[in-house]
């Protein structure tokens, strides 16, 4: 069953002058952790704001748990929790005031004490006096405390130390394993690689790719560098091989996909200082942005 279905979502601002997202189609299954990737201004936050009914789509539809994100927004918000990329709360309220206020609207949280302990939050301090990490902890606890069915998280690990990042990522994995769905927007490709089942890459408001992490890994690229005397580099040319530089026998290649044909060719010649670097998800992500 699809937990989230976005069809032909477009959003323009200032009439039709500014295009934020265009014809975005997404289907996210229940129990899935979906990573939404893209640089600033690509349309990630606008897509999320349409899902949360903060902004209204110019065209297209969003269904969450089978309900319309706009018409059924009140019912949906009792099933969804949202974590904004920046913590905007009341400076003069304590963390505890925020937690109490939310409980007055969404009911008492049976797991609140555990979450406070797990994320080590001092709930007695005023929001203005919390460190950026503690502000983030409060946002996370507010998002998790009412045990939603869907979590929509915008840059969730921002400002968290590595230990708490790990705690949150483990929590999200367990949440998804128990049937919860996570829609996660992030710049942190390492964390996306660690926990997401699938990712969507958005560029200039358009979804350019939706892949499973394993498929993306198959698209991995390699940086190969070595030194070889009197080599005609043209002999190394392959469909998936780009000769980046050739300076006095110091050669750099970029290989997308299968590296074996190149390795076989290099095995037949005398090379020195051979280095093969496995590029990260980040390089793949950047590759999408070159297109």
């Amino acid at each position, binding site marked *: 069953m699809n937990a989230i279905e976005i069809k032909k979502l477009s959003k323009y*601002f200032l009439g039709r002058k500014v295009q934020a997202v265009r014809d975005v189609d997404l289907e996210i299954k229940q129990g899935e952790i979906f990573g939404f990737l893209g640089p600033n201004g690509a349309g990630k936050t606008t897509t999320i*704001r349409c899902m*949360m*009914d*903060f*902004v*209204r789509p110019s065209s297209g539809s969003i269904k969450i748990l089978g309900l319309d994100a706009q018409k059924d*927004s*009140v*019912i949906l*918000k*009792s099933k*969804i*929790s*949202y974590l*904004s990329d*920046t913590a*905007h*709360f*009341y400076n003069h309220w304590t963390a505890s005031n925020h937690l109490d*206020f*939310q409980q*007055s*609207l*969404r009911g008492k949280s049976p797991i609140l004490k555990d979450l406070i302990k797990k994320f080590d939050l001092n709930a007695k301090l005023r929001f203005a006096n919390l460190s950026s990490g503690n502000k983030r902890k409060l946002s996370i606890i*507010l998002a998790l405390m009412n045990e939603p069915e869907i979590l929509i998280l915008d840059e969730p690990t921002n400002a968290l130390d590595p230990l708490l990042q790990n705690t949150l990522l483990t929590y999200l994995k367990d949440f998804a394993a128990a049937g919860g769905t996570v829609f996660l927007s992030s710049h942190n490709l390492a964390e996306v690689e660690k926990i997401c089942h699938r990712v969507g890459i958005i560029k200039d408001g358009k979804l350019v790719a939706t892949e499973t992490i394993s498929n993306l890994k198959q698209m991995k690229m390699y940086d190969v560098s070595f030194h070889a005397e009197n080599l005609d580099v043209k002999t190394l040319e392959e469909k998936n091989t780009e000769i980046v530089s050739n300076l006095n026998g110091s050669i750099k290649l970029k290989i997308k996909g299968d590296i074996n044909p190149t390795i076989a060719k290099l095995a037949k010649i005398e090379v020195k200082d051979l280095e093969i670097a496995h590029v990260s998800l980040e390089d793949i992500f950047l590759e999408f942005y070159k297109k």
Partner: protein
Amino acid sequence: MISIIWTNIKERKTSVIIYIVISVLFLWLYVALFPSLQAQSQALGAVLKSMPEGLLKALGSAPDQLNNFTLEALLGSKQFSMTFQIFVAILTFGLAASDLSGEIESGTIEYLLSQPISRLKFYFARFISAFILITIFVAASTLLVMPLATLYHVAYVPHIYWELFADGLLFSTALYSFAYFLSAMSSAKGQVIGISTGIFTVMYGVFIVSALKDNLDKIKYLSLFHYFPGEILNGGGIDKLGVWIFIIIIVLFTALGALIFKKRDITIS
């Protein structure tokens, strides 16, 4: 909804208490001074008669005001000619701007709208909480005259203060409704306060000009200052046209604001 109303009342209570204290202190001052002023009323009456009639009218006074110098006449020329209206304007414009555009400006609106409550419920919850606070302020600024007058053994006419309360509440709610409508459209608190204050100032200017220039007398109907307090403090009762105008402003701008707030995109930076 009740939680939003109650939280907002708690949130704004300090500023409202400050306005109430200042307003009541002014009232106290006038009531306390009244016995000695009454004793000097004949001399003051001569001074008033020497002033231009138009100016006195604009200030809510009349040349023969001191012929029958009452507490109501004193309050009509002092507290309720401008002071009360300024307090109400500052209070209502501040509340309206904070209630919607202030939340958008600070980004807290996302936290509020991510809760399971419809935009309309949120909109009316904030309206109701502001109405409760305004009612408390207006009640304190009008009805407390009676116990203060009793304290200083000053004669007063009770029904005048009840009328003042009712009409003052309508006047204040009308100001709030207009500013709240602006707040529903805008994402900047300063913009709401600026536009509301600008219109308020223009209306006061219109009222003054209409009083000073006989040929421009009719433009007084364009100013809310004409309808409140009107002739209440002279014992003339509430201006019925004013009541209708206040009610129309309240209903019209509150409904328009609701419609806009329900439909608009809410984006924070």
